[in-house]
């Protein structure tokens, strides 16, 4: 017999729930909580989910194991009092400007205060007034609205394994902040925005570009183009009473037209293009023997993650730009001549499920002639706000249709929005057939499959969530696994779970959105990118062949080593002369173990004895990505591999002589 327990007089079976909170939800009671997320570890800090367990008193439901025959009460005067005190305590420290907060009407604290009927606060109001961090292009951090639930900290470390933000200080001085309390843009953030997604209040929000887009739309000189990413169309409707996953692309197009966009295109068009470019690159890597595995590069948070934490894998990233950036570059080279306007008059606004896309648009590689290829990126949430602001009755709109040709796509481009979609699209290209690869669909952390191609097995892996990606990279480094193609999306579930989407609280809405995309693919005429006639035409008229020089200049990019972007190299011994030689010694783990320290010591002694100190500066740095050839020492710009004192000294003397 299944064990049961009693929740507010209901008998509820215990079926392996991890904690009382989940069981109480099963009993159709929504306990308030700030710090509980089924995908994160139990934290137990907000104390809001407190319940009364007979014989044990008040316990937090999130951290209590369900036991047979427990008698649980979720509503007593004592509990109500407790919740009221907690919310009042939080409000006493909270920024008081609710009305102007971007999270207003969507804020869990506000919502709870209202539900609890809090009219006055018995405690002293002591709101913080820390500076607001607007340094990044994607996110805004307002510590004055933080309730210290730690959701952002845990998602950043547990799901994304980035750790860009953490708690600092103690007690009532405790705060969530990037390292050294610096701006977010100075740290290790990859701008996936998952922190903003889980933040119950307005402490981390998306940096809005709505005002700038309104500005463009009002400017008669601008020809404003919008393009809509696949994941947006299955989520935006949620804000207007549609079910998650329900297609509302027609209404979105109509709304964008009403807002004043001159053309509305589909990012899935350049997704098709990405499939072709990326598959071509992959096949050429297969033929030329590498470097493999090839990683997808559509996700800017993932790209930044590699550049920052695993730059040794930069070469494995596909050189293809993301669909957003392909679109910008393509649109700005095609459209001006078509409409007989200057390039600078054509403005591209992309509608994305993603916050990292905002940062991607600012990368220097994607600036042409001083102008960004993608002018502005607005997230699904921002577009919702624009629609609401304009008073458009979204649900009542007549469906519109995309402008051509950049609005045409195959199903391959559409499924990009779900984790596994890119892989499936590439596979359809490689086998040149429209078949469904169900192995790569789903929500498991790691999915894999293999196909035969020209007598060779191609091994493919799909991961979403950067922690999963990190685990995979580590296994690849240890040669525990071998793959040829790996798709990585930073957000769990892929773009449908992006931080720019309407906020969701459980996995089910993510599943529904994914289902919506695959459904869309199923009902379309074409399923393979290579079948897209407009893409074919583009190659004929402009791009020549996939992977051509022209294609490379418009659709591909390069990556940078962004490791150790906190602070500069450490100066161990400074030189006093202006004409100095700079010796930088690598102190990465490998070089450290191979004797970088001894070398530094000997060098320091040598300089001292020979009185060269004032001419030579010694610095410590991190990892030149040639770990096998360590210890590495750089003298001015010359890198010495497997450095020894002899090698260093002879090079040094040579330079000093000159």
């Amino acid at each position, binding site marked *: 017999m299944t064990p049961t327990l009693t929740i507010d007089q209901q008998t509820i079976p215990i079926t392996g729930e991890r904690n009382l909170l989940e069981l109480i939800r099963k009993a159709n009671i929504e306990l308030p909580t700030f710090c509980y997320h089924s995908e994160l570890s139990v934290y137990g800090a907000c104390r809001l989910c407190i319940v009364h367990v007979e014989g044990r008193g008040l316990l937090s439901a999130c951290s209590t194991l369900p036991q047979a025959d427990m008698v649980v009460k979720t509503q007593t005067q004592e509990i109500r009092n407790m919740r009221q005190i907690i919310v009042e305590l939080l409000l006493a420290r909270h920024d008081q400007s609710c009305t102007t907060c971007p999270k207003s009407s969507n804020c869990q604290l506000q919502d709870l205060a209202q539900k609890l009927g809090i009219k006055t606060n018995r405690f002293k109001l002591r709101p913080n007034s820390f500076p607001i961090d607007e340094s990044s292009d994607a996110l805004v951090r307002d510590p004055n609205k933080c309730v210290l639930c730690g959701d952002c900290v845990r998602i950043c470390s547990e799901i994304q394994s980035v750790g860009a933000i953490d708690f*600092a200080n*103690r007690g009532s001085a405790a705060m969530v*902040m990037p*390292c050294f309390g610096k701006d977010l843009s100075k740290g290790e953030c990859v701008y996936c925005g998952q922190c903003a997604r889980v933040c119950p209040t307005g402490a981390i929000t998306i940096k809005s570009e709505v005002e700038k887009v309104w500005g463009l739309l009002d400017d008669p000189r601008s020809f404003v183009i919008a393009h809509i990413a696949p994941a947006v169309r299955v989520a935006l409707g949620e804000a207007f009473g549609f079910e998650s996953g329900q297609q509302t692309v027609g209404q979105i197009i109509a709304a964008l037209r009403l807002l004043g966009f001159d053309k509305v295109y589909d990012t899935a068009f350049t997704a098709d293009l990405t499939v072709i470019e990326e598959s071509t690159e992959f096949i050429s890597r297969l033929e030329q023997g590498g470097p493999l595995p090839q990683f997808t590069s559509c996700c800017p948070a993932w790209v930044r993650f590699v550049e920052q934490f695993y730059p040794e894998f930069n070469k494995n990233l596909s050189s293809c730009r993301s669909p957003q950036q392909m679109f910008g570059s393509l649109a700005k080279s095609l459209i001006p001549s078509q409409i007989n306007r200057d390039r600078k008059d054509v403005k591209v606004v992309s509608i994305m499920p993603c916050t990292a896309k905002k940062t991607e648009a600012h990368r220097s590689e994607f600036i042409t002639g001083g102008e960004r290829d993608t002018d502005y990126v607005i997230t699904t949430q921002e577009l919702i706000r624009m629609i609401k602001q304009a008073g458009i009755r979204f649900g009542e709109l007549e469906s519109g249709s995309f402008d051509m040709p950049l609005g045409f796509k195959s199903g391959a481009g559409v499924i990009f929005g779900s984790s596994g979609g890119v892989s499936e699209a590439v596979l359809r290209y490689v086998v040149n057939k429209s078949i469904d690869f169900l192995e790569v669909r789903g929500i498991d952390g790691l999915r894999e499959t293999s196909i035969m191609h020209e007598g060779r097995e191609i091994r493919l892996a799909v991961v979403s969530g950067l922690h999963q990606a990190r685990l995979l990279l580590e296994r690849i480094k240890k040669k525990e696994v071998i793959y040829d193609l790996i798709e990585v999306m930073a957000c769990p579930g892929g773009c449908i779970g992006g931080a720019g989407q309407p906020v969701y609280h459980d996995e089910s809405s993510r599943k529904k959105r994914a289902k919506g995309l695959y459904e869309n693919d199923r009902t379309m005429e074409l399923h393979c990118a290579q079948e897209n006639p407009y893409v074919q035409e583009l190659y004929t008229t402009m791009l020549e062949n996939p992977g051509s020089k022209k294609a490379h200049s418009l659709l591909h990019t390069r990556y940078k080593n962004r490791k*150790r972007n906190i602070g500069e190299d*450490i100066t161990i011994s400074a030189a006093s002369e202006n004409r100095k030689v700079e010796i930088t010694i690598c102190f*990465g783990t490998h070089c450290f173990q191979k004797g970088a320290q001894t070398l*530094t010591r000997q060098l320091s002694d040598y300089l*001292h004895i020979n009185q060269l100190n004032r001419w030579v500066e010694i610095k410590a740095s991190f990892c030149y990505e040639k770990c096998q050839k360590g210890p590495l020492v750089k003298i001015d710009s010359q890198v010495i591999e497997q450095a020894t004192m002899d090698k260093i000294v002879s090079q040094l003397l040579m330079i000093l002589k000159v």
Partner: protein
Amino acid sequence: MKKSAFRKFDKVCDILALHKLNPARLIPILQAVQEEYRYLPEEIIAFIASSLHVPAAKVYGVATFYSHFTLKPKGKYVFKVCDGTACHVKRSMGILDAIREKLKLKEGESTTLDLLFTVETVSCLGACGIAPVLVVNEDVHGQMTPEKTVILIDHILQKEATHE
């Protein structure tokens, strides 16, 4: 000077090696580094974080959680006035006031501009039997009074003056 800057960095490497680059040893590592530098310089925290493959934000979080870590240089003489219960009931705060007044420290300041003195309170040094207690660097002074404290500071100032 140059040599000593290197020595310190060299020591940090030794400390990391001694703890086998084990992130679980973060606290002893930071303690040892602070012993060397007398505080935790930012670039050294970043260096430690990179070496241990731990996010710098986490190391910063640990460094700011524990009261023994300091991110600012402290004075040559660190005065710790015990404000444990036993010392408190024996009016230890009068001693603190006397020190702050003598050193002319303003509200919110804890270190003198010449980096000679730092004044802080601690919550019980476990020497309650001889309360109230003042610790100067490692030396414990029991049964202190504001008057005795001022004399002690004068002694230090005299000693410093003759050294120079």
